[in-house]
């Protein structure tokens, strides 16, 4: 299945909700966690992780592209998807990019532009896969080192592509949207808050331009991102929930089968206490054909939407989301259920009942 950045989805759901606030500072020795944060130990663990996650080398453009095509949507397997996205990024090294669009048409290289955007889109999706891999509460050192290294690698790959497409950004709205998406997606984790804030600002600028230039680009991805940002920010920092909701509604119109948009818009309605609209949209989400979504996105989104349904006292809907999710899980056993397991005294499992409290019943 060939992928186009038009199908980029999921990348940014949590992005607009990125920490406005965080202050990682020095660590004092004492707890298990702070012991693990001594810089030498951390450096050692990261070096081990880098070694451990190394992909098998692949040579040649065609082989790399084939590896990319084969694995770049495997969102349930961060190791194999990581290697596929890496292979695709490496393949681009051998692909030149005309910076003059007319020249591109003359030399039949618009495909090259498309490929660059596509592989960049896959890198951005990979940020999302990584962000979803972090534990809810506390992460052990091996896994946190692995995620850190993958995050930095993905950043480097994306920046290399962005550097190549930079000259065409004024001419190709899609490229501008992906730059904004990079700024948002790459700063969800592993980023000092000042940097995340600056990235958000520059993304907002790009998105405003993109929406003015070409609102239908990438099926309304600009509206999805900007809408979430405007909903999340407080008014005195430029937030505007009502305009945010309008943008999300546009995104939903342009891309009615994307459950990620449903999630964002249902939550935005709930923030404004527009429960009836939220419920109607949940109903619409139930009608979306599961086959149109990446399997992992589908089971994640239905779990989330089902949880929102419960919060809105729509038990029946929650059951329907749960049934659909279970069906998908049954036919694709490789998909992650994301059962959270306790650390530091607490976790999602209820110790009295043994039930996972995120279950939809």
């Amino acid at each position, binding site marked *: 299945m060939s992928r186009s950045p038009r199908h980029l989805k999921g990348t940014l759901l949590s992005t607009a*909700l*990125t*920490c*406005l*606030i*965080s*202050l*990682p*500072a*020095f*660590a*004092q*020795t*004492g*707890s*298990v*966690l*702070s*012991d693990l*944060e001594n810089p030498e130990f951390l450096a050692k663990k990261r070096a081990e992780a880098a070694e451990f996650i190394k992909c098998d080398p692949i040579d040649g453009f065609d082989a790399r592209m084939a590896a990319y095509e084969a694995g770049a949507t495997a969102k349930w397997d961060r190791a194999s998807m990581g290697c596929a996205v890496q292979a695709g990024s490496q393949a681009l090294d051998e692909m030149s990019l005309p910076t003059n669009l007319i020249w591109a048409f003359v030399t039949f290289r618009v495909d090259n532009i498309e490929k660059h955007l596509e592989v960049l889109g896959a890198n951005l999706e990979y940020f999302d896969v990584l962000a979803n891999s972090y534990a*809810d*509460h*506390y*992460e*052990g*050192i*091996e*896994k*946190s080192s692995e995620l850190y290294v993958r995050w930095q690698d993905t950043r480097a790959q994306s920046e290399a592509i962005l550097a190549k497409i930079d000259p065409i950004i004024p001419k190709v709205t899609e490229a501008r949207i992906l730059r904004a998406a990079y700024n948002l997606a790459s700063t*969800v984790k592993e980023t000092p*808050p*000042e940097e995340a*804030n600056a990235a958000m600002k520059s993304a907002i600028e790009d998105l405003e331009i993109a929406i003015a230039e070409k609102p239908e680009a990438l099926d309304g991805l600009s509206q999805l991102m900007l809408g979430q940002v405007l909903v*999340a920010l*407080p*008014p*005195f920092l430029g937030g505007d929930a009502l305009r945010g909701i309008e943008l999300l509604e546009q995104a939903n119109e342009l891309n009615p089968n994307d459950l990620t948009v449903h999630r964002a818009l249902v939550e935005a309605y709930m*923030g*404004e206490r527009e429960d009836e609209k939220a419920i109607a949209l949940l109903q619409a989400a139930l009608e979306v054909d599961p086959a149109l979504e990446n399997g992992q996105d589908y089971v994640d989104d239905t779990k*989330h*939407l*089902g*949880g*929102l349904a*419960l*919060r809105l006292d729509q038990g029946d809907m929650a059951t329907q989301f749960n049934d659909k999710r279970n069906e998908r899980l049954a036919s694709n056993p490789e998909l992650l259920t994301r*059962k959270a*397991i*306790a*650390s*530091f*005294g*607490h*976790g999602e499992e*209820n*110790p*009295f009942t*043994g039930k996972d*409290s*995120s279950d939809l019943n």
Partner: protein
Amino acid sequence: MTTKLALSSILCTTILGSAAYAADITVPSGDEIQKYVDQAQPGDTILVEPGVYKQSVYIDKPNITIRGLRDGDNWAVMDGELIRNDGIITSGHSSTIDGFFVKAYKGNGIMTQGANNFTISNNYVEGAFYGIFPQYGINGLITGNTVSGAEDAGVYVGMSDNVDVFENIAFGNVMGLEFENTRNGLMANNHVYGNSAGITLTLIPGLPVKDANNLVIRDNLIEDNNIENFAPASSIASQVPRGIGIGIVGPDKTTIENNEIKNNGTAGILVADQTLFGMSTDPKNDPYSDEAIIMANTFSGNGEDMTGILGDLIKQAGASGLDVVALGKGRGSCLANPDEVASLGTDRWETCDPSLSAAEMKTAMIPGGAEEPVYTAEQKGRLTYLAVCTGCHTYDSVLHGPSMQSIQALYKDNADGMIEYISEPVRKREDFPEMPPQAYLGEENLNAIADYILNELGG
């Protein structure tokens, strides 16, 4: 600020039956406390003589009082030597833990797990990740303690109900006092100073308790909470903004009244949504802080040395010297004297009606106490695993010890071997610290934990 010590007597009256046979058991200085706990009968009081106890203690029967005897500066000292995870843990109902000096544990100084009708009083807890940490408890009193140096919260009331936190002193912690995913709590007459954030009321995603509400913060002195946030970067606490007196992040129906809130560099009170902390979202949580009721308090000198990203955001908005900052989508909040309070983001707030005052509220505890369910072995296994093992082990990654996934593989079909190891660990891996022995948990519990790990835990 008057004492409410009379309240602890309510607990005693909830104790039925065995009181008639209650005995005092004395632990001689330096002896193994667990031995005496194991012999104790419900209703007994264990008196621990001054001295140093390099141990962990676990209580899993109801109605035990364990009291450190003190002779001037000479305390009963529980010393974790920075190798043990927990000081004193109880999962027995109607437990009282009183009068200990607890220091140098890696995880929890004093913890209750699933224990109702608890009292934690007059202890001095230094260091640890959590200082005093009651979890899954209904009806409890935390009073007269001093907590300092916790990398998370000094007093951390988690997923509990009906808890009073009275007359404690909290300084030098990342968070001084915290109610997390807790319903019905009262913090009164505490002195909270020199933490990164003074008092936090939070709703954390991904936990079995999905809400937090009816929390009253009254008559406290909350000052100079400006120290650098020293929580490990990988913990949620590292995201707590520095320089705030009180932070409300997620809970509904919170009342802040008659506190003296001064010299907190970033802001006096922060009201924000759960999403502010950059945490994962939990669709079952209502992330908005609704009905924050800020009655009359005494504010002075707040917001004069704004730091961190919250400080930056306030500066971007062109403000400073703020007593109250509201960043979220909460509804139904109010401020008692809007003209006298420097605030930002409270445009939609109303003026509080005097009838909302909580000045007369005496306690959040349940008259007559909470029920005391007897836990099954299965429940005990899960509770003890949570309380003890998760301090050093996670499921799918190395923490302090190897992952539980790898342990499951090692001990598949060999529960006895695992129990043997837990009771008397030997050094196996070069690049790991030694695992401290867990025999003090008792045979029954160890069986339950092994059963849980080998047959239930996992994805």
